[in-house]
């Protein structure tokens, strides 16, 4: 159940990919996840190339295992980052927020595996055609910027349409989620929010606590009106935002309120006035533990679920 095309492709022990979240997916988190047998991923967000280069070099010192870099394609620095990645030759590049087609060939030529995050069947097929090694199919349960479809429905639809391996993302935080994803045809999972609540993640402790304390209905969606839906944990900031969103003429004010709001929460710990991006799995997360324990517990629970399934 853990020996899939993804573990072979990426040369890792468990097909558990850590989400490449902006600001908090640094060398510390990525190396800890890779050391624990998964694939750690450094998140570029909208950071400039030299900052990410330093994180890559730091991670290379912290682990000998493969790790990846997530490139947010709407970043103003995307071309610089790709140039830097052609030099640094990391094992894996995952991409979000767009179509990485034009970068794939060059990355593959230097031996980097390319795994785009896709929210639809059409983009999945297109990415396969231009040479993606695998796909991360992300459902709307995820945190931060999200698509419309649920993991439960989009993963099997993509699995039916492509031959390359699929990694399921969105809403997965434990062994039950892992086995469910495998049942849908996925050969691996990507997990974000659960890894934010790890000891190694540099996110502010108040941010982690906000996720740990979140209940089932607390991870809500803002930004539908502006066309960029974002899942965050309910707080004073989200209430203000939702009120402003009732009237599209407030767009200017919405932009002013949201700019820098994620860093405010994740790094500065301003969890009342910042944007606490997190997925629906927040309600499933009850503690902060180290990455090794997170992964070991997922594996243990998956095995338990599997033997249960074999006996019913």
């Amino acid at each position, binding site marked *: 159940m853990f020996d899939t095309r993804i573990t072979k492709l990426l040369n890792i022990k468990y097909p558990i990919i850590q989400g490449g979240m902006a600001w908090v997916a640094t060398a510390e988190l990525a190396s800890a996840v890779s050391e624990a047998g998964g694939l750690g991923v450094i998140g570029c967000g909208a950071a400039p190339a030299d900052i990410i280069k330093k994180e890559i070099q730091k991670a290379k010192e912290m682990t000998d295992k493969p790790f990846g870099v997530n490139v947010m394609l709407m970043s103003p620095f995307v071309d610089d980052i790709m140039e830097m990645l052609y030099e640094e030759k990391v094992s894996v590049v995952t991409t979000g927020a767009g*179509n990485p087609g034009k970068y794939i060939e060059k990355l593959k030529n230097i031996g980097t595996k390319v795994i785009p995050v896709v929210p639809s069947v059409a*983009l999945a097929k297109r990415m396969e055609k231009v040479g993606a090694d695998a796909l991360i199919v992300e459902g709307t349960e995820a945190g931060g910027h999200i698509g419309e479809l649920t993991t439960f429905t989009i993963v099997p639809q993509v699995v039916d349409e492509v031959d390359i391996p699929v990694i399921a993302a969105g809403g997965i935080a434990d062994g039950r989620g892992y086995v469910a994803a495998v049942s849908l045809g996925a050969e691996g999972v990507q997990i974000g929010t659960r890894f934010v609540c790890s000891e190694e993640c540099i996110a502010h402790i108040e941010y982690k606590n906000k996720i740990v304390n979140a209940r089932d209905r607390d991870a809500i969606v803002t930004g539908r009106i502006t066309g960029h839906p974002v899942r965050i944990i309910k707080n004073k900031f989200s209430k203000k935002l939702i009120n402003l969103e009732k009237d599209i003429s407030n767009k200017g004010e919405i932009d002013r309120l949201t700019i820098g709001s994620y860093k405010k929460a994740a790094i500065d710990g301003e969890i009342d006035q910042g944007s606490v991006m997190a997925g629906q799995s927040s309600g499933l997360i009850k503690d902060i533990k180290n990455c090794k324990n997170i992964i070991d517990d997922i594996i243990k629970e998956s095995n338990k679920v599997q033997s249960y399934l074999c006996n019913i």
Partner: protein
Amino acid sequence: MVLEKLKNIIAEQLDVEKEDIKLESSFQNDLGADSLDVVELIMAIEEDFEIEIPDEDAEKISIVKDAVDYINNNK
């Protein structure tokens, strides 16, 4: 001819009326497509016109005229 056929594809893909599709219409700003709709539209054009539109070129197709020109130059 190309335009007529293209209009049919656009009308079907984006659920818009054919008479609302003008050469200057922007897929995203005028015809209500989001970026994922555009990917689907490009793939439908590829299939129906039996051409290949690489991503570098697809990126530059934002209005109906861009698509017409591309098809005419590449079929």
